[in-house]
C-alpha cells in the first residue's frame, strides 16, 4: 500500500528530487529536472506508478532522520532478527573534474545488527507510468531501462538483481548492498561503481557540502533546527541552473483526500516571491537570494509589462494543464494533473510581491540597474492603472474574478515601495507623484470598502462578509501596524472563523475549501502576526512550538495540515510553508532581541549609490 503523504522524506541535488517512504520505497522521482515526467510515481498510483523499494522482508518498524544538517536520509528498520540502515541521497559535488552520472541517486543498505533478509523491488515506469519498460541486464554493467526519448535509466548494484528487478538477499552484521541509480540524456552513460569505497566517498562528500552550506545559515533564535531544515529544503528545491525555487517537487497530491483539488506545483509562483526573498536574505544566504532575484527579474522581464502567476524553471510560461487519466491518484484523488491552468490567471498581488522582493534586495545592499529600474517603473504604471480591476487573487480562485482586499493591499505595497525607492534615488525618472496618488486612492478604498463594521474586521473582498488568512499579511507589508485597532479586531475575527485547532488556520471558507486542511503558510503568518506586535512574544513562541509539532518526523510540511490527525495534505514538501516557518522565526527572533519595535525589522530603504 502506498504510504501516506507525511510518511515521505525528500532527497535531491538542486536539480531534481525524490520522495522516499518510511518503508524504504522510492515513490516519486522525476529526472532530469524537477518538472520532468516521473520515472517512479507510486505516490500517485500504487499499481502503475512504479517504485524502487528496499526494505526488510516481513514485518518491521522504522525510524528515520536526516544526517545532521544535510539532505542525506537514513532510515533504520527494526525486525525480529536484526537492524537494517538504509541511506538515501543524491550526490552533490564541489568538483567539476569528477566523472559523475548526469543524475544519480545512491542507496546503501547496511545490516547493523543480527541478520536481515532484504527485499528489493525495482520497477520503473517512465513517463508518469504510461508504460512498463523492459529491464535489460548487462551483467556487471548493471540494469538498463529505456526511459523514453532516447534517455537511459541505469542501475548498478552489487545486489543479485536480474531483469525481473526483484531479489531477496540475506545480510549479516556489517554486510552492505550498494545501489547507484543513474540517468543519462544525449550522452554515453556514466556508470558509477556500486562499491563500498565509492559509495562511502560520495556520501561523505555530499554530507560535507550540505553541512558546509547549512553552517552559513545566520540564525540563532528559536527553533534553530527547524529553521536550518527549512533552509536546507529551500536550497534543495532551488533549481541551480536558473535560481528558480519550485513550490513543491510533486504534482497532484490532494488538498482533500479523494477530492479533485490536485494540482501540479513543480513551478515557481510569484505570489511568495517577497516572502522567499526575505527568508533567504534574512538567513544570510545571499548567494541563493541573489540567484533567486536574478531568476525573478529575468522571468518577469520576459513577460513585460504583464506578470504571470507562475513560471517554469527557466522563467517561461508553463505548458497547458493536462489530466493523466491512466493514474489512479493518491488515495484515489483524481484527476492527476500536469501543467497548471493558473498560468492564465490575473493576480494583481504579484506586482506587490515582485516589487517588495526587489526592495529586499536593495535593503540587503543590492543595487538596481537601469533596465531593472525601467522594468519596476513599468510594473508601477500597470498597478497604477489596473489596481481597481477584479482578479483571481492569491488563492487562484477559478471562475470570474473578484475584488480581493489582499490584492488591493499588495498593489498599495507595490506603489509604496516604488515611492520609497524613487525617493532614495533608485528609480530615476519614476513618476513618484502619480504612484503616490494611486497609492492613496487604494488605501482610501480599502479603508472604506474592505472594512466591515458589522463583522468588525477587514474582509476578504471589498464589501464582503468573510475573512481571509491573507489579511494577516497587512502588517508584514507595512500597510498598518500589527497592533492597530482595526488589525487587532481582524485578528480576533480570523481566529474565531478560521482557526480550526490551536495554531492551525484555514485560508478562508468557501465552496472550494470545504474538506481541505489548515494551510501551513497561513498558520505561520499567524505566528508572524503575533511576533510583529499582534500579540506577545510568548504567544508567538507558543504558536510556533505548536506548529512545529505538526511537522513530520523529519521536519517537513506539506501545503496543508489535516486538523484531525496532523497529517500532511497537498503537494509535499511545500517550499512556501517552510518559507513561512523561516519568516515567523526571524520575526520572533527580532521581537525577542529588540522588543516590539524590533519586530518590524529595518524596513528603511538606503540611499542609492552615486
Amino acid at each position, binding site marked *: 500500500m502506498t504510504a501516506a503523504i507525511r510518511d515521505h522524506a525528500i532527497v535531491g541535488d538542486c536539480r531534481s528530487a525524490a520522495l522516499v517512504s518510511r518503508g524504504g520505497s522510492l515513490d516519486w522521482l522525476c529526472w532530469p529536472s524537477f518538472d520532468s515526467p516521473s520515472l517512479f510515481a507510486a505516490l500517485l498510483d500504487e499499481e502503475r506508478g512504479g517504485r524502487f523499494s528496499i526494505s526488510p522482508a516481513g514485518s518491521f518498524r522504522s525510524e528515520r532522520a536526516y544526517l545532521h544538517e544535510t539532505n542525506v536520509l537514513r532510515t533504520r528498520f527494526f525486525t525480529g532478527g536484526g537492524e537494517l540502515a538504509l541511506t538515501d541521497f543524491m550526490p552533490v559535488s564541489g568538483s567539476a573534474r569528477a566523472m559523475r552520472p548526469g543524475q544519480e541517486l545512491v542507496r546503501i543498505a547496511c545490516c547493523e545488527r543480527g541478520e536481515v533478509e532484504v527485499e528489493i523491488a525495482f520497477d520503473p515506469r517512465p513517463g508518469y507510468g504510461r508504460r512498463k519498460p523492459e529491464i535489460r541486464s548487462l551483467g556487471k*554493467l548493471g540494469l538498463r531501462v529505456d526511459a523514453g526519448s532516447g*534517455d537511459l535509466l541505469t542501475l548498478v548494484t552489487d545486489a543479485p538483481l536480474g531483469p525481473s528487478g526483484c531479489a531477496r538477499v540475506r545480510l549479516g552484521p556489517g554486510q552492505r548492498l550498494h545501489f547507484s541509480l543513474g540517468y543519462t540524456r544525449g*550522452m554515453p552513460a556514466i556508470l558509477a561503481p556500486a562499491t563500498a569505497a565509492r559509495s562511502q566517498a560520495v556520501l561523505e562528500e555530499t554530507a560535507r557540502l550540505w553541512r558546509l552550506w547549512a553552517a552559513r545559515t545566520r540564525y540563532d533564535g528559536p527553533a534553530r533546527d527547524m529553521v536550518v531544515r527549512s533552509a536546507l529544503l529551500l536550497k534543495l528545491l532551488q533549481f541551480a541552473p536558473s535560481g528558480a525555487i519550485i513550490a513543491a517537487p510533486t504534482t497532484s497530491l490532494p488538498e482533500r483526500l479523494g477530492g479533485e483539488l490536485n494540482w501540479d506545483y513543480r513551478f515557481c509562483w510569484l505570489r511568495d516571491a517577497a516572502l522567499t526573498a526575505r527568508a533567504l536574505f534574512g538567513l544570510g544566504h545571499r548567494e541563493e537570494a541573489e540567484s533567486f532575484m536574478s531568476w525573478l527579474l529575468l522571468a518577469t522581464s520576459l513577460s513585460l509589462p504583464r506578470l504571470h502567476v507562475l513560471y517554469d524553471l527557466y522563467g517561461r510560461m508553463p505548458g497547458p494543464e493536462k489530466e493523466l487519466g491512466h493514474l489512479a491518484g493518491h488515495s484515489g484523488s483524481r484527476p492527476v494533473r500536469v501543467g497548471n491552468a493558473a498560468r492564465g490567471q490575473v493576480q494583481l498581488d504579484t506586482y506587490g510581491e515582485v516589487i517588495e522582493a526587489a526592495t529586499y534586495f536593495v535593503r540587503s545592499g543590492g543595487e538596481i540597474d537601469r533596465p531593472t529600474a525601467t522594468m519596476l517603473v513599468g510594473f508601477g504604471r500597470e498597478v497604477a492603472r489596473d489596481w481597481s480591476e477584479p482578479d483571481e487573487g492569491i488563492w487562484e480562485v477559478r471562475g470570474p474574478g473578484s475584488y480581493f482586499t489582499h490584492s488591493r493591499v499588495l498593489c498599495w505595497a507595490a506603489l509604496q515601495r516604488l515611492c520609497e525607492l524613487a525617493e532614495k534615488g533608485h528609480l530615476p525618472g519614476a513618476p513618484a507623484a502619480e504612484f503616490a496618488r494611486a497609492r492613496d486612492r487604494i488605501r482610501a478604498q480599502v479603508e472604506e470598502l474592505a472594512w466591515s463594521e458589522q463583522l468588525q474586521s477587514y474582509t476578504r473582498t471589498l464589501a464582503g462578509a468573510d475573512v481571509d488568512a491573507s489579511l494577516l499579511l497587512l502588517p508584514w507589508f507595512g500597510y498598518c501596524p500589527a497592533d492597530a485597532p482595526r488589525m487587532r479586531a481582524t485578528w480576533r475575527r480570523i481566529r474565531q472563523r478560521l482557526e480550526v485547532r490551536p495554531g492551525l488556520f484555514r485560508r478562508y471558507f468557501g465552496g472550494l475549501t470545504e474538506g481541505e486542511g489548515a494551510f501551513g503558510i497561513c498558520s505561520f503568518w499567524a505566528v508572524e502576526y503575533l511576533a510583529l506586535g499582534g500579540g506577545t512574544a510568548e504567544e508567538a513562541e507558543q504558536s510556533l512550538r505548536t506548529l512545529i509539532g505538526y511537522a513530520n518526523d523529519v521536519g517537513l510540511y506539506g501545503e496543508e495540515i489535516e486538523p484531525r490527525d496532523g497529517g500532511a495534505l497537498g503537494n509535499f514538501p511545500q517550499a512556501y510553508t517552510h518559507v513561512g516557518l523561516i519568516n515567523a522565526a526571524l520575526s520572533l527572533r527580532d521581537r525577542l532581541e529588540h522588543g516590539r519595535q524590533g519586530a518590524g525589522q529595518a524596513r528603511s530603504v538606503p540611499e542609492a549609490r552615486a
Partner: protein
Amino acid sequence: MSWPPSLLAGFAGTLLLTSLEAGAQQLHLTRMSMPYLLGTAFTASRDRAKVIGFFTHLVNGQLFALLYVAVFRATGHSGALWGALLGLIHSAVVLLVVMPLLPSLHPRMASAQQGPTDLRQIEPPGPMALHYGLSTPLMLVVSHVIFGMVVGGLL
C-alpha cells in the same frame, strides 16, 4: 597529392559529420558522441572533454581525409561516389572493429567483463554501438558516407 584541398575537404567533411552526429543526439536518435568519447580519454571533466574531443575529432578527420586521398590515388578512382564507398567501409570498420575494441583502448571506459570501476565508468558502446541507441549504427553509417562524399567530391 595537393595538401591544401585535401585538408580543406577533411575539415569540411569532419565538420559535417560532427554536426550530423550532434543533430542526431539532439533529436534523441543516439547517445553516441565521438567528441565526448575522444575527450574523456584526456580528461574526466565533462565540459572540457567535449571541447578537447571536438578538436581531436577535427584532427582525426584531417588524417582520415589524407588516408582517403591516398586510397583515391592508389586506386585511380575519386569523386563523391567513391568517397561514399570509402565512407561505408570506414563506418563498417568503426562499427565492427573499433567499437568492440574501445573498452580496451579507452582509459575511462568500463568493460562488460569487469563492470565500472573508480577509473573506468563510461558506458561501453556494445556490439555495433547499440548500447548508445538502436539508431546509432545507421547514424554512424550515414554520417561516414556523407563524410566520404564530401571528401571525394571536393577533391
